[in-house]
């Protein structure tokens, strides 16, 4: 890395992983200059991508979690969630991790 300097041992391990990252979409000519940057969820998380940018499956499209914490803010895909700007700003306050805590999400009625 040129801009960041790894100081502790964990940072050095992460740097080692980044240098050998698997790149799916190459960024411009000359090959990858850094880790793969997703260009929007439909590119990266659409079904059909067998592995995520870390070579695992945890970052792949998981509709429930993605709808709750991502799609409803920015994605074109409609997600039925409460109005978090006006009426229910804290509806996910007790939900630290969607995979585990989704039962703690408040039921909100219009």
């Amino acid at each position, binding site marked *: *890395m*040129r*801009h*960041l*300097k*790894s*100081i*502790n*041992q*964990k*940072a050095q*391990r*992460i740097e080692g992983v*980044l240098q050998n*990252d698997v790149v799916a979409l190459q960024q411009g000519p000359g090959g990858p*200059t*850094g*880790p793969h*940057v*997703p*260009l*929007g*969820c439909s590119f*990266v*998380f659409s079904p059909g991508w067998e592995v995520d940018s870390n070579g*695992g499956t*945890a*970052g792949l499209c*998981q509709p429930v*979690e993605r709808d709750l*914490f*991502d799609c409803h*803010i*920015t*994605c074109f895909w409609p997600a039925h969630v409460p109005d978090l700007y006006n009426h229910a700003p804290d509806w996910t306050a*007790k*939900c*630290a*991790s969607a*995979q*585990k*805590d989704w039962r*703690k999400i408040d039921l909100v009625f219009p």
Partner: protein
Amino acid sequence: MMLRRGEYHSFSGGDARYLYLVPSAAVVELDDVSHAVLERLATGDRTANELAESLGARWSGDEVRSSIDELLGVRAIHSVVAPPVAPPSVKSKRSIPLQTLVLNVTSKCNLSCGYCYEYGEDRIVESGTKPRFMDEATAKQSVDFMFAEAGDSPSVNLTFFGGETLLNFKMLKSALAYAKQRGAELGKQVNASLTTNATLLREEIVDWFIENDVGVTVSIDGAREQQDKFRVFSNGMGSYDIILPRIKDLLARHRRKPVGARVTLTGQNLDVVSIYRHLFEEIGFWEVGFAPVTTSWQREYAIEDLGFQQLLAGFQTLAAEYLSEAIAGRRHGFSNVRDTLEEIHKGMSKSHPCGAGFGLLGVATDGDVALCHRFAGSDSHKLGSVFSGVDHAAQATFLETHHIDNKTDCSTCWARPLCAGGCYHEAHTRYGTTTQPNLHYCEWIRAWTNTCLEVYGTLATKRPDFLTHLS
């Protein structure tokens, strides 16, 4: 692509700026362009093009973009549409080898310290329900249990705890002799240690420490006035004058392993700087470690908010001393900062606050196995017995329910890789359950962790060779 700041804590040390990344616990140093990118993102989400444009007067677009790539790579920033998904916690497929077994060799003590969690108002184990002393058969069985649970580990740590451990010195001798004999047969190294109040130290015992390389920690609260506030005999007499000559003799003779002091801080005893001066500089302990008393909040010796501020100021003074000594190439004995620096350097990101329940187990006087020495003897925290082995189902349930992912309160805290919710025993005493994070000292932990990060960052700039000693 809209970019947003990720989860990190920024700090500085020496002349450099750093990020402590969460939850990876990586520490990276920022250059000017990376710092500028993060500053821009502090005021709101921006695209890479907007960032390149707004910083165009100082850096080229390529320079800004390559900095963004690196920040994305370490997850200091992320795309708004694709925030990093925390990896699901994976259960270890291997059984967890035991590294440290703590034997509570007796629940009896010849002191009557007012704040003691074993006997005081917050005790877990009712007196009279367990034998007062561990017998030799149980101790031998515990040693066999330790080797059986240690798996392939080349070494094991056997720690004696109490009560006052030296009240059962005869058993200590036979237990350690047996452990060393079995260790030699099995090709495993046995490291022994114990904690004592020093009242019963005598020549024969110190000889035994020396012959067996026993690491010794002395529970002591400071100079006479500080020590005798709580650390008293049952008739109310202070213990300082009894222990001082014994400690001096111990320090003069036992050179095989460093002898440390372990201080319990209370609302009435918070002057950590003067305590440190006395124990390290005047008495000559190798190192001094401090821990706040474990107590429910209503006790008169509990540390209140103002007390935590005073405590922090004292810790910061000692941390600053530690730093200047380290830069000068000299040793400082404040072990709290050293322990945290090691964890920062390794980049530890803890799933659980400590090793209790997996790498470390405690054994009660009757052979019942518990999370750690503080819970030894408590039936509701039992994880098996040295006679029947670890209850692996109970252990797995404990580890799952106490995982950091289940501590919702911690999910937004940047200090969670190091704290992970804090001591189970503290939580049990304060809130009645081990699953609760210790929310009463969150502010303190964050402030103290920040201090340690600043010390670490300064060392990385001024004495990078020092960091290698932390490995």
